[in-house]
């Protein structure tokens, strides 16, 4: 042990370089692999995963066809009734906005409605109460363990009451285990369909219209293809397929294994997994090559000692053991650093991918990935060079220099370049998001959800009162805000026919446009008349419907209702720029029977004081209604939460990658120059100047690096291009980034090699020649 420490201390620079970079690299790569694995292994934790299938609907019109996971409500249940092979069928529906109130505190929880067979299909341990029974009754809920803990602490959650959307009282009847982070169905609260029926006007028939998803659990050894072949007759039993087919429409159902369902129609997910694996591999390869080169260099230095030991009677296995101990010691240090770094990076990864740090580090799959990766590294970069040294394979090759001798260097430089360009584009894209023109101004704008009948029945009165507050510039009324995507509605240019398209739909008054500082061409909604048939459309709607001059033209809904276009607004982003900007049809706001929102523009200078004033006014006008003032900008930030987390992660990984790149190059330079120290000495005594030697080593290396980089451009381009497809609007992939990155890497190669060479050539040549 003492000898090992002395040996390492003698080469402390190289050793610490190797160990630290390896530790960081292992840690980053393992986290990336784990995230990829987690995405890939979605839903694989269910014991009966092979038997559970998701039901998909394929709807064909004369113009196109679409495959959707949204199905009609009775489908899954009917499959269970009609097919003996289907053991259970369950249907769920996501609730998009679920504020729960408990002891004056409001909490938004991921809520689903489901039937009582849910837990027959998705097995989950029930900790308290009767989950199945809870999903049969009205206004009863099943909650997860962590929600129970969050809401009630140590109190018994059973029979506790929550208030949903300000009015509906929900009683907790069962508590289940939390879903793992890789569950596609991850409800925090599950309510019965009885509750849903009572709350909404739902279309729960075969005509469809509402967003249900369905799952079936088959009996073991079911012939799935045989079952699928019966689906056409099944659809025919419940719908008039002949009539549909005659007019060019068709309706089909098919089932996909649950573990594959998430990948259906979701190329993004596959690309995301591939990118993560690729990045992890590149990062790992980078540090491995680096450590390998340094290991070889260290082993070469150790060769003399090994020979002396052999001469003095040490057996082959004893020498091997010595190398092994040395390697194990260094490896343990690297592992320690890897664990330390993981502990610090994991929270960043957690914010991005919604994992809990504890779940990551204590999960069996994470530990398995960690151990496998590290074992491979240990073998590849510590033991392999040792064995090669033992066999004397590391004598300097002379006459026949292998063609792949520079392969590790080439790969290292290529990987650095790929990482650099990738991170650069990610960074550019994330900056682009921040500066993207949304089409409206969100500065100084807050909004209030009038979430119960008392509030929305009084929306006009509240609007008037709030407008009077000093510091409030304007107040607009709408039935939604363009922050998380809007609901859709079908419009066409003819009362009937095939020209119908789905557009986003929003009810708003004239003040809404003013509040959001949206540009509208045309007269806009009339303030006096209560004409519900006026609409303002965005430019995208006009384009899609083929209007050159849309003002005062008429558009239709499928049921024949007609609207006059009274304004054309500039396009606005109603969700995030991950998806294309959809056309929006703004219908004139009329007396609502559901949600209403007030958007309030305030003087930015006194925003805090005005916000407080507004809240107090609400409390005074409508006591005990518990309203919350929300900020547009905060919600926009939340919508891009993962992107901003990615930006942080990218900055972090970019710094690490750059450091590792430099470390790699220094490692390479040290190792290759060390091999050539004698040559440098000889050249020097033969009259070479330091500059001659610098040029000699750099010329060769920079040329090779240049060629490598050019070869790596397509790989980098592919990686960047795949990632950027996540965004409907993105920065162009310009050659300039590749050129600059190329120059930058070459510059780093040049500087790193030069500094190392310079230090080497400044030494007295006799130093290097004496011990040869």
């Amino acid at each position: 042990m003492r000898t090992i420490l002395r040996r390492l201390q003698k080469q402390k620079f190289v050793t610490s370089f190797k160990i630290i970079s390896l530790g960081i690299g292992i840690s980053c790569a393992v986290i990336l692999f784990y995230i990829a694995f987690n995405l890939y292994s979605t839903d694989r934790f269910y014991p009966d995963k092979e038997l559970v299938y998701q039901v998909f609907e394929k709807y064909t019109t004369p113009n196109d066809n679409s495959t959707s996971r949204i199905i009609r409500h009775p489908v899954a249940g009917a499959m269970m009734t009609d097919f003996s092979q289907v053991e259970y069928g369950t249907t769920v529906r996501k609730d998009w906005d679920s504020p729960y109130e408990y002891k004056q505190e409001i909490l938004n929880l991921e809520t689903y409605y489901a039937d009582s067979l849910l837990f027959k299909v998705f097995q989950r341990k029930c900790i308290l109460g009767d989950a199945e029974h809870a999903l049969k009754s009205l206004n009863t809920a099943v909650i997860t363990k962590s929600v129970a803990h969050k809401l009630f602490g140590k109190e018994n959650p059973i029979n506790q009451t929550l208030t949903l959307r300000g009015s509906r009282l929900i009683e907790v009847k069962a508590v289940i285990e939390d879903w793992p982070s890789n569950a596609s169905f991850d409800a925090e609260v599950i309510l019965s369909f009885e509750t849903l029926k009572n709350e909404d006007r739902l279309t729960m028939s075969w005509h469809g219209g509402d967003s249900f998803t369905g799952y079936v659990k088959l009996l073991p050894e079911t012939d799935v293809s045989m079952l699928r072949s019966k689906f056409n007759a099944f659809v025919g039993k419940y719908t008039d397929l002949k009539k549909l087919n005659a007019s060019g429409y068709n309706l089909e159902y098919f089932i996909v294994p649950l573990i594959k369902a998430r990948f259906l129609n979701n190329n993004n997910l596959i690309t995301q997994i591939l990118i993560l694996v690729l990045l992890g591999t590149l990062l790992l390869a980078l540090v491995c090559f680096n450590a390998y080169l340094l290991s070889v260099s260290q082993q070469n230095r150790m060769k003399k000692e090994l020979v002396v030991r052999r001469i003095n009677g040490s057996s082959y296995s004893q020498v091997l053991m010595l190398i092994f101990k040395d390697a194990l010691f260094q490896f343990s240090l690297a592992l320690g650093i890897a664990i330390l770094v993981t502990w610090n990076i994991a929270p960043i990864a957690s914010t991005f991918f919604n994992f809990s740090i504890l779940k990551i580090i204590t999960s069996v799959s994470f530990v398995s990935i960690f151990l496998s990766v590290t074992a491979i590294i240990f073998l590849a970069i510590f033991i392999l060079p040792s064995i090669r040294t033992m066999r004397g394979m590391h004598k300097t090759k002379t006459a026949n220099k292998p063609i792949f001798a520079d392969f590790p260097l080439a790969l290292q430089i290529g990987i650095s370049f790929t990482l650099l360009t990738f991170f650069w584009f990610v960074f550019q894209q994330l900056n682009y998001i921040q500066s993207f023109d949304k089409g409206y101004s969100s500065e100084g704008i807050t909004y209030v959800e009038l979430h119960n009948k008392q509030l929305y029945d009084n929306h006009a009165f509240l609007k008037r009162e709030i407008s009077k507050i000093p510091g409030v510039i304007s107040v607009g009324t709408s039935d939604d805000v363009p922050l998380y995507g809007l609901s859709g509605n079908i419009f066409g240019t003819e009362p009937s026919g095939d020209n119908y398209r789905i557009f986003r739909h929003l009810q708003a008054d004239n003040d809404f446009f003013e509040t959001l500082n949206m540009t509208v061409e045309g007269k806009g909604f009339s303030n006096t008349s209560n004409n519900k048939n006026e609409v303002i459309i965005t430019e995208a709607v006009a384009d899609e419907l083929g209007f050159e001059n849309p003002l005062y033209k008429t558009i239709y809904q499928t049921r024949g209702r007609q609207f006059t276009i009274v304004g054309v607004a500039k396009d606005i982003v109603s969700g995030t720029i991950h998806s294309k900007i959809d056309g929006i049809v703004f219908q004139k706001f009329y007396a609502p029977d559901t949600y209403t929102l007030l958007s309030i523009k305030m003087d930015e200078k006194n925003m805090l004081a005005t916000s407080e004033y507004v809240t107090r006014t609400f409390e005074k006008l409508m006591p005990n209604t518990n309203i919350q003032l929300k900020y547009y900008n905060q919600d926009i930030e939340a919508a891009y939460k993962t992107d901003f987390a990615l930006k942080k992660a990218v900055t972090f990984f970019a710094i690490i990658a750059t450091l590792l790149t430099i470390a790699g190059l220094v490692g390479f330079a040290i190792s290759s120059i060390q091999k050539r120290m004698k040559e440098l000495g000889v050249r020097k005594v033969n009259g070479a100047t330091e500059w001659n030697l610098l040029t000699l080593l750099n010329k060769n290396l920079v040329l090779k690096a240049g060629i490598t980089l050019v070869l790596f451009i397509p790989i980098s381009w592919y990686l960047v291009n795949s990632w950027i497809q996540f965004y409907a609007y993105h920065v162009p992939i310009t050659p300039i980034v590749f050129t600059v990155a190329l120059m930058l890497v070459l510059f780093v190669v040049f500087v790193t090699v030069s500094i190392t060479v310079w230090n080497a050539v400044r030494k007295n040549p006799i130093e290097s020649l004496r011990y040869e």
Partner: protein
Amino acid sequence: MIELKGIFKYFNHKTQRTFVLKDINTKIGEGEFVSIMGPSGAGKSTLLNIIGLLDESSEGEYLFFDESMTKVKDKKKVEYHRNYIGFIFQAYHLIEEMTVYENIETPLIYKGIKKKERQAIIADILDRFNIVAKKDLFPQQLSGGQQQMVGIARAIAGKPKLLLADEPTGNLHTEQGKMIMEVLKELNEEGTTIIQVTHNEAFAQYGTRTIRLLDGRIEEDVKSKVTSLAE
């Protein structure tokens, strides 16, 4: 040609000073063939390195062609290495990635000699040392004697006035050693000043003068009695 005045070389270790050379005073004229002898640790190689501008003395003055080499700049040293001084090493120190031809060519390239002229010089040298057939081989494909022959060829390619050889026969058997010494003697007769470090009494006698060092001091400095003893 060479004048050493009160040359000291020492290393300081904390409070202790270790002397390698102590008060070396001597002159070496053009055309001499000097053998430096002495037991291990006597300072032979250090003295040779100081003369060859690969090392610097701690005290004293070194004149080379009447010019002081004390505190001489690196650029100037390179000039001397290119045009005045050639080195031969015990371990040959050939560049293993280069052929015999390329090894001999190296100092000529640094000297800035044009390709055509280089080819002519190398052809002459290869011919002279009888290694034309070996010109495309790599050092590892040669015997020790042949490698040292290439080492000498490389050292004299630039026509140096001073040839410094640090135990040139140390790694060779007697016959090969003799062959190398014959070559050095011939070069000396042609006018090249040679300083060699050797442990071999017989080979020392090839020189015209022998300097014996002991504990860093010159113990004896004598003209060789029988220059043809080894013959």
